[in-house]
C-alpha cells in the first residue's frame, strides 16, 4: 500500500526550512521523514529515494555557510551520500543545503560567499531554466520565479569554471537579473549524474499561487512553480502516476 517514494529531510541544529519543505514534499505526494542530524544513520539514508538538505543556518554558519555541517557530516557518515547517489538516490540541497553540498564536494567546485554589499537579501527573483529535462525542472517554463533569502548566496569558482559548467550543462538555474553578483549568474547546479541538485532559491516557498507577491500573477490558476518542481520529481520516482502539467486546472489546496 505504501508505495509513495520516501523523502528524508536532514535537519541540523539551525536548519529552519524543514517545515515548509516537508509541507511541499507531502503536498506533492512524498512520504516525508524529518530526522535531526544526531539521529541520522547511513541505513536511513540508503532506504529513502530523495534526500533533502533544507535551508537554514546549520550550526549558525558562523565560520562560513555550511562548513560545520559539512565537517560533522563527513565525520559521522563518511561518504554515505556518495554511495546513496551511486545507488540511484537523489539529493536536493536548498539554500543552506546547497551551501553544504558544495562544501561536501558533491557539486561542481565552487563556493557560496557573502553578497558583494554584505547584506542579507529576501526577494523574489526570475530564474532561467537551463535543464528543462531534469526531473525537478521538467514541468517548469523557461523563466520561473522563486524567492531567495540568503546572505551568502553569491556563487564563485576558479576562473573559467562557471562558464565551463554552463557549457557542460551542469548549471540548472541562472538569475535573470544577477541580484547577488554570482559568477555566470549561477543560482543552481547539478552534478555530472544529475542526481545531486543544489539551488539558492526556495521552491518550497512557492507552493500555491497565493504565495506569489502579485495576486494577478498569470502563471497558473492555483499552484505555484514550487509545486511542479517537487511533483515532477515525485513522478520521476513513482512512474505509475499520471503526470501533471501546469496548464491543467487543479483543485485548490489548503496551506
Amino acid at each position, binding site marked *: 500500500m505504501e508505495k509513495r517514494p520516501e523523502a528524508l529531510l536532514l535537519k541540523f541544529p539551525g536548519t529552519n526550512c524543514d517545515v515548509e519543505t516537508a509541507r511541499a514534499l507531502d503536498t506533492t505526494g512524498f512520504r516525508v521523514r524529518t530526522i535531526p542530524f544526531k539521529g541520522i544513520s547511513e541505513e536511513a539514508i540508503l532506504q529513502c529515494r530523495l534526500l533533502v538538505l533544507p535551508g537554514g543556518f546549520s*550550526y*549558525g554558519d*558562523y*565560520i*562560513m555557510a555550511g*562548513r*560545520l555541517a559539512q*565537517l560533522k557530516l563527513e565525520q559521522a557518515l563518511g561518504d554515505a551520500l556518495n554511495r546513496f547517489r551511486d545507488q540511484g538516490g537523489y539529493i536536493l540541497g536548498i539554500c543552506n543545503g546547497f551551501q553544504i553540498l558544495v562544501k561536501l564536494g558533491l557539486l561542481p*567546485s*565552487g*563556493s557560496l*560567499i*557573502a553578497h*558583494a554589499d*554584505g547584506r542579507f537579501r529576501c526577494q523574489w527573483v526570475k530564474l532561467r531554466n537551463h535543464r528543462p529535462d531534469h526531473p525537478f525542472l521538467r514541468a517548469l517554463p523557461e523563466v520561473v520565479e522563486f524567492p531567495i533569502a540568503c546572505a551568502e548566496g*553569491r556563487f*564563485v*569558482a*576558479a576562473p573559467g569554471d562557471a562558464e565551463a559548467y554552463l557549457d557542460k550543462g551542469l548549471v540548472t538555474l541562472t538569475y535573470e537579473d544577477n541580484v547577488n553578483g554570482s559568477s555566470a549568474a549561477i543560482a543552481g547546479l547539478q552534478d555530472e549524474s544529475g542526481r545531486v541538485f543544489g539551488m539558492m532559491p526556495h521552491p518550497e516557498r512557492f507552493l500555491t499561487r497565493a504565495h506569489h507577491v502579485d495576486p494577478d500573477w498569470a502563471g497558473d490558476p492555483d499552484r505555484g512553480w514550487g509545486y511542479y518542481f517537487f511533483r515532477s520529481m515525485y513522478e520521476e520516482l513513482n512512474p505509475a502516476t499520471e503526470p501533471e502539467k501546469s496548464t491543467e486546472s487543479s483543485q485548490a489546496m489548503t496551506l
Partner: protein
Amino acid sequence: MRHIVEILNRFQPDTDAGRLLYTPADTGMTCRTTRRYAFQYTGRLDSLQDFVRTVLLDPISEDLHEAARPCLDEFAFYLDISLKPGLLDLEKEAVVQYVRDRQDADWTLETLSVGRRYYFLGTGLIGPEPFIRDMVNPVIHTWNVVHGTALV
C-alpha cells in the same frame, strides 16, 4: 606557542570608507576587511595549520596569510576590532567547540582570539578617529589602530 592567521576574501570588493560613518562623507578612502585568528596552542604546528585550512579557510574564495604582520602592504591605517572577553563571540564559540569535539587532534588549543581587521586604503582625507567613533562600541569592543606607510 602563538600562531596568527589572517584570511582575505579575493572576491569581496573594497567598500567606500565613507559609508561606514554615521554622516556618510567623501573620505577618499576605501576599506577592506579581513578575518584574523590568534591561537595560543601546544602541540604540532602543522596540524594546527591543517586545521586552519580545512575549517577556517574557503580555498575557492579566500587567501590565507600565516604571519603576524599585516597581509596588505599599502594602507593608511588599519583598525582591529574584536569583542571584549566575557561577551559571547559566536564565531569563536563555534571554532572552540569544534576543536573540543575533535578527538584526533595532536595540538591543543589554549586560547583563541577572533577579530576583524579593517584596512583603510588610499590617501585618506581623515584619520582613524571618526571610524573608531562610529564602528567601535566601547561597551562591547576592544580595538587597536596601527598606521601604515601610505600617506594620510
